[in-house]
């Protein structure tokens, strides 16, 4: 029984990692209707920026805020400079640009910082909280931060005119222009915010998996699966999806089919869920009228 509980807790901890990146994916999807494959690498890159700032002697929280700003600007700049020129290209051409961004960021980071593992500090205490040994204080704290981001995101999309305008611009750019929304800037803003959320994810993930250029490589698939299983247009769903994937994978690995196949089987289950509920567990059902 203990073993089961411990696996669940460990699963929640890794699920938190997936959830945080899944949120960034939801953000960019809400704003642009694209799934940005370079999201993880952008998060990784901005985490290195944070590392550099701290290496230069800046304390944690100022670094955190500064990194968010840098990430936001980076996101806006990437949209304006790299994505804008392929605005009208076929979707898959845009996907290729995402892939290009992924490899460029990965490679450039390795070049600048080398591939050697770097420890990344946590803002949370070292000693176990409430006697829980199976989730470190950082893991608990990171989940807390992810939930905070989630609430902020939810409020932003649900209740602010800007959030509404961003969703509108992504869904139907033509109509959005016709109500006076500056669609171009909405997309750039979406990129900026997604990059910011990614930076938070990176800074929360790095203390757990350590900082290296391939830090996010494995996480992307999980985050993508989490976002879809929860519903790509629903930030709550994405976070729940993250936890679900984390726990499911651990339980499968520990008790059902062993570690070698746990990823494959977890993915089969997720795809199975999507077959039954094509909009994810918590996503909006899309209606098309002919």
């Amino acid at each position, binding site marked *: 029984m203990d073993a089961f509980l411990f696996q669940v807790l460990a699963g929640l901890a890794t699920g938190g990692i997936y959830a945080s990146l899944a949120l960034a994916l939801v953000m960019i999807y809400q704003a642009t209707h694209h*799934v940005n494959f370079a999201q993880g690498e952008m998060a990784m890159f901005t985490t290195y920026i944070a590392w550099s700032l701290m290496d230069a002697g800046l304390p944690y929280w100022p670094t955190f805020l500064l990194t968010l700003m840098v990430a936001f600007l980076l996101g806006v700049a990437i949209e304006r400079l*790299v994505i804008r*020129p*392929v605005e*009208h*290209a*076929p979707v*898959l*051409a845009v*996907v*290729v*640009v995402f*892939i*290009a*961004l*992924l*490899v*460029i960021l*990965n*490679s*450039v980071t*390795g*070049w600048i910082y080398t591939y050697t593992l770097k420890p990344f500090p946590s803002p949370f205490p070292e000693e176990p909280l409430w006697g829980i040994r199976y989730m470190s204080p950082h893991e608990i704290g990171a989940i807390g931060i992810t939930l905070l981001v989630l609430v902020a995101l939810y409020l932003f999309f649900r209740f602010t005119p800007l959030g509404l305008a961003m969703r509108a611009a992504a869904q139907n750019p033509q109509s959005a222009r016709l109500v006076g929304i500056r669609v171009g800037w909405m997309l750039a803003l979406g990129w900026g915010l997604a990059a910011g959320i990614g930076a938070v994810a990176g800074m929360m993930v790095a203390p757990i998996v350590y900082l290296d250029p391939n830090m996010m490589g494995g996480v992307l*698939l999980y985050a*993508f*699966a989490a976002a*879809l299983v929860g519903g*790509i247009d629903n930030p709550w769903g994405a976070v729940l999806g993250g936890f679900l994937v984390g726990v499911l994978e651990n339980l499968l690995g520990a008790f059902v089919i062993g570690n*070698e*196949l746990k*990823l*494959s089987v977890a*993915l*089969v289950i*997720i*795809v199975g869920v*999507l*077959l039954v509920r*094509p909009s994810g567990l918590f996503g909006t059902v899309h209606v098309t009228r*002919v």
Partner: protein
Amino acid sequence: MTKKTLIALLLLVAVASIVPFVVSNYRTFQFTLVLVYAIALLGLNILTGYNGQVSLGHGAFYAIGAYCAAVLMDKAGVPYWATVPAAGAVCLVVGFLFGLPALRLEGLYLALATFALGVSMPQLLKYKALEEWTGGVQGIVIAKPDAPWGLPLNSDQWLYFFTLGVALAMFLLGWNLLRGRVGRALVAIRDHHIAAEAMGVHNALYKSLAFGVSAMYTGVAGALGAIAVQFVAPDSFSIFLSILLLVGIVIGGLASISGALYGALFIQFVPNLADEISKAAPWAIFGIFMILFVYLMPTGVAGALRMLSERQKRHNFPAAKNEEEVP
């Protein structure tokens, strides 16, 4: 086929036949790989370009094809040439079966399912229960075929011609398939699936068939690739292979037969070029190339060439042009 395209095709084949006699064995080997990739890309293009079903995991079918060839040669002593159709047949079935549940998935969800397939494949190949056949993490080393019938060719040259022959057959088959009713049905489903259904196109059948045929092409390519490289291992078929294939069809040109060839040239030679330019960050250079190609030719090399030739035509017959354009 018009006379002009026929002549162009014959010319291309003639040039392709001279290649192994004028370049080194190593280059011949590289061009063999180009042909292999071209077959794989044509397969992916049938699915993604023509039928609009995105696959981020086609490397999995390439891997299945490669392992089919390797296992048959290594364990059953099947001659190399016979493994190619066998790999194609296996992948046809596997692809068709995978295509059945995939029917219910669209867009991003299909992307996830195929992505998952691509990521899982190396793990499945390593799986204990299959180790007896797959050789587990060690992979399988296979022998290189020599030229038969006493042909005065070394094994690289022979393999090149063998691959060229298979590629020609596969391309002609693809050309026949895509120019006709099947091709039109695939495109109709991609563009207006509801309308296509209304017009009597059996969506489900065509979509799963597209998956099967696409996997068959890619599997044949995998088998040829394994024979050329003489080695298969789980590490040879990581998710990057799948991603590279996708990059190949986009840069070559979606929904274009010749695009497969351009894409193959790109994924074969541009990474090498990137490596020559910078050891420090070869991927960065590769990424920049990808972006440049997409910027300059958003509809792929094939699309750009088509536009160029149309512009040329328009330039030659400006008067005729205007008449056509009036709706």
